[in-house]
């Protein structure tokens, strides 16, 4: 009886193994199809060359970033649809700590219109939503695509990736960990 049970377990496990293999292939097929359509939640890493390891303020970004332990600078453009989706995800709530948004537009008015339409003007007050008229900051960095997130670690630019979705965007926003207030006896 024990032997028969063990045989059954072995056979069922092998059947499972084969079926799991087929399932993995199915997932790969789906991914391949999504890749063809271009709907993969896959950020592309940008080669940032000389920018890597430099201070953000060198390119006109806020000086506060030079002393940030962990931050993300998100470049959005008023002409890009994904940028609108990303900006809309921030509407009506305070900007996450460690996130800076640079809005690129051809003119000051266009940038302000983008900021106001998407409700970013309320967050603009603390200086973490900036307007980059005519891509002045972007051109100093050598950036010609949006939306792009720059990772800042210990005050230095570490890497940059495209931000294909809100889902990915939310995953790269740093979550600052702060010490609890000391208990005074």
């Amino acid at each position: 009886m024990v032997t028969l049970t063990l045989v059954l377990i072995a056979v069922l496990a092998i059947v499972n193994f084969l079926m799991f293999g087929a399932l993995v292939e199915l997932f790969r097929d789906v991914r391949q199809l999504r890749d063809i359509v271009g709907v993969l939640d896959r950020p592309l890493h940008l080669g940032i060359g000389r920018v890597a390891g430099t201070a953000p303020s060198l390119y006109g970004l806020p000086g506060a970033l030079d002393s940030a332990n962990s931050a993300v600078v998100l470049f959005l453009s008023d002409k890009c649809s994904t940028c609108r989706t990303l900006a809309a995800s921030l509407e009506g709530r305070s900007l996450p700590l460690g996130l800076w948004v640079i809005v690129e537009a051809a003119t000051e008015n266009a940038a302000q219109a983008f900021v106001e339409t998407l409700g970013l003007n309320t967050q603009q007050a603390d200086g973490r939503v900036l307007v980059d008229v005519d891509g002045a900051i972007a051109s100093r960095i050598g950036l010609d695509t949006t939306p792009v997130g720059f990772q800042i670690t210990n005050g230095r630019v570490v890497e940059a990736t495209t931000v294909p979705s809100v889902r990915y965007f939310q995953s790269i926003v740093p979550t600052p960990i702060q010490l609890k207030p000391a208990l005074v006896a």
Partner: protein
Amino acid sequence: MPAAIDALSMAMSGTLLWAGLEKCRNIEGIAAAIRDLGIGTQALAIGLLVAAVEIALALGLIFAPAATAVQLGVALLAALFAASGAWALATGRLVRCNCFGSTGNQRLGAAQLWALIPWLGAVAILHAQASGPASASEGFLQLAIVALALAGVRAAGVVQASHGARGDRLSATEMLKWLP
């Protein structure tokens, strides 16, 4: 020590069982590799034979690891794969290995040559130490453990793939709104 020998034979058995079952699941993959090596005729039959031998040796390593035929078979199979790798390298052929199924992108070559060393080493250890399971039940227990381990590893792959697919699906919902 016998436990270590059992673990070794089970690991070898698991490797061969994985390879054999995956080849059975997509026999065309190994047949294509055989064709790419220049053996045009009977590639499918040879592929089936290789898969069957792998599975038979996997079972042999569980139930009769001390048997000379099993040890010789494993050594010959490893040598055959090494020779295939050497042949691919020597002739400059780019042959997709399909050693563990058609999902990988590994090519036949140096890896098979290097793999010969641990395979022969393991066979030598079995030759010197292996005694085999005390009873049929113990053998089936080992087989069940090996099969469950294979299924477990595969299940982990399924979970990983499903997480990726879920991420793609969630992001696709928003991406489809702005795609041209």
